């Protein structure tokens, strides 16, 4: 029962976010970047024209939240996908080719030694800041995680009997890889993938906070949160909406990851 709740809750939350994302293509109360200075700092209210209020440039917060889902999901999903693909490739290479093994894994260790934010800061400073920079920085951060996962999974699986059997049949390595390894690795990869998306959203938020993420005037929740910082004492409501949006997203993906993790572990582990 326990697992199901995590998973279900997580899926619900993520569905909410996806719904918002879809909404961004269908209906926006106001253009998200349209400034209206005389109307700045309107407080939120059900009756008002701006349900969630306006920010310091008079932009409608609700529209920015809806629109912001695009940027956030774009950055999170693409960076994790890129990182995962590269990581899987490198991890597999390291596990299957002797010569690549040490080099690749040492580099991965090196990369992992950098605390996330530090690495992202360094990389974003070097590359162009903004969406591209964030995606690049976060994906590089994800590579070692996936590569090490794949590496150890492949080594584990290699020892399994049926692989040895397949090898003795003379199936090509490519065939073995595709028909046996991948299905075995998929569950854990998916779990890792979903958790990683949660992390990616968090990192993007921190990057925006430090001014290194998505640039103004684009609507990104992390950026909105960061911009609300200066006005926190005077206009605290500015921080509420983006904060909640971020929490829902991160929590959702983390819960899914958690739930999947539990299912996996419990399959091998008679815990129930």
């Amino acid at each position, binding site marked *: 029962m326990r697992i199901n709740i995590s998973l279900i809750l997580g899926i619900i939350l993520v569905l909410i976010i996806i719904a918002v994302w879809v909404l961004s293509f269908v209906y926006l109360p106001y253009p998200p970047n349209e400034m209206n200075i005389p109307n700045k700092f309107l407080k939120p209210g059900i009756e008002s024209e701006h349900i969630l209020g306006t920010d310091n440039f008079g932009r409608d917060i609700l529209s920015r939240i809806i629109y912001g889902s695009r940027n956030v999901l774009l950055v999170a999903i693409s960076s994790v996908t890129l990182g995962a693909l590269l990581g899987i490739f490198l991890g597999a290479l390291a596990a299957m080719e002797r010569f690549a093994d040490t080099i690749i894994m040492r580099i991965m260790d090196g990369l992992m030694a950098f605390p996330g934010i530090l690495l992202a800061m360094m990389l974003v400073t070097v590359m162009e800041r903004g969406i591209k920079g964030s995606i690049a920085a976060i994906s590089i951060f994800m590579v070692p995680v996936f590569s090490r996962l794949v590496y150890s999974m492949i080594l584990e699986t290699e020892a399994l009997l049926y692989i040895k059997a397949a090898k003795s049949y003379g199936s090509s390595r490519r065939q073995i890889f595709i028909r046996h390894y991948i299905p075995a690795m998929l569950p854990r990869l998916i779990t890792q993938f979903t958790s990683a998306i949660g992390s990616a959203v968090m990192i993007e938020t921190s990057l925006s906070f430090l*001014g290194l993420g998505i640039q103004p005037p684009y609507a990104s929740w992390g950026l909105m949160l960061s911009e609300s910082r200066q006005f926190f004492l005077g206009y605290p409501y500015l921080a509420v909406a983006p904060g909640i949006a971020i929490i829902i997203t991160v929590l959702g993906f983390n819960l899914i990851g958690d739930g999947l993790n539990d299912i996996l572990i419990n399959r091998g582990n008679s815990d129930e």
Partner: protein
Amino acid sequence: MKKIIAILLIAMLISACTAQENTPEKADVKTELTMGYTTEPEGLDPHRTAAASTFTVTNNIFDTLVGVTPQWEIVPRLAKEWVISDDGMEITFSLRDDVYFHNGRQMTAKDVEYSFNRLKDAESPRARDYENIVKIEVLNDYEIKFITAALDVELLKSFVYPWAAVVPEEEVANLKTEPVGTGAFTLEEWVPQQHLILKRNENYYGDEIKLETVKMVLIPDATGMMAGFQVGDLDIIPLTGDQVTMIEGNENYKIISEPMNAVQIMSLNTKNEYLSNEKVRQAMAMAINKDEVIEASMFGYGAKIGSHLPPTSPDYYDTNNIIEYNPEKAKELLKEAGYENGFEIDMSLPKNYQLHVDAGQVIADQLGRIGIKVNIQLVEWGTWLSEVYGAKNFDTTVVGHTGRLDSYAFLSRYKSDSNDYISLTTGEVDVLLEEALKELDENKRKEIYKDIQVILANKLPAIYLQTPHTMLALQKNVEGMKIFPIDFYDYKDVYLTE
């Protein structure tokens, strides 16, 4: 084991929460001032840095030959009096004979000579400003003469700036971290990223200093700063426009606010294919609603300008009516220029200056409405300096130019051969600038500067936005804090009551 640790922790936490704060007895008047600031100084050597954050501090540790009042009057400091030759090419200072460096040694004209040579050497960021001084003659222990190559009617003013400080030769090796000057305060302690403590110089030559110590605390976060002020930890803080409402009306606080001696402008790279067209620049200027820019970036605490001098300058001439705000007309002008469908350009904004970042965003939005798509790029100050200012690699940018006492210093970059990041390449102000430098008659000079300002307002090598206000919030018992036309703080005359 775990339980024991847990109990200990809880005990500690509880006692920490209830521990009495060691509040000093408020029997006598407080003599320690605590001020919040947001940017760390880049070393404390006045000859080796260009950062304003440094001078706000060093102005109290070092002295210059002359000083300036908030009313722009030049007053004696290390120099008692001065004489300018008839042809204006020589200036002789008579120095005080009661000045001692913090290390005990007495200051003489030789120190002044040494300091200015150091100010002019290759490692000094301000060397170029003092190239005109070609000879320094020490006449005797307390008299020194400076000789220039070309006539500069504003020569005296170059001796006011905080980088023209007098330093003792024997201490220069460590000046950056252990500054030794003649000023009203000595550096007692500098903990990087945390605070700076200044201590009263008991051998100061000037009037009695009431404060014993000044602690400057680094708080990079506006919320933290305001929170510190509201709980009474900080006596003075810099205030941003939106915070004004939290302070005004509260009888426990005071606000002082002065227009800065600065201009915020949107610089244009006239080499850009679109921006080289004067009509395009005028169209852009017409599409910008400066009131909204000021409202958004300074919450209204700024004054519109039409040209490159601030209203605080004695030579200021109001050019605000030359370009009107009219987006419709702007679109027409664009069409005339051949860009009916608009175009795309970049805007670099220095990310550590919220004021410019905000203004830039509003401008981008306004330009968007007449069809010009602006791509904003926030860059670090370091990148801005090397890319925009140094390599002139930009289309547009929004930035501030500050702190000069003479109009020539503000306007000299518009000479067509100035090689500055912006200039009026078509040369209309060249002759005028030459004349202004040589014109000894103040009124005639004013006329010349008026003409220059009008030309700039029409030709628009940059679009002139506003002069923002400096605002400080003070606890009600703080007196004597003033705002100067140069970007620094001066604690000599500050004191606390009650």
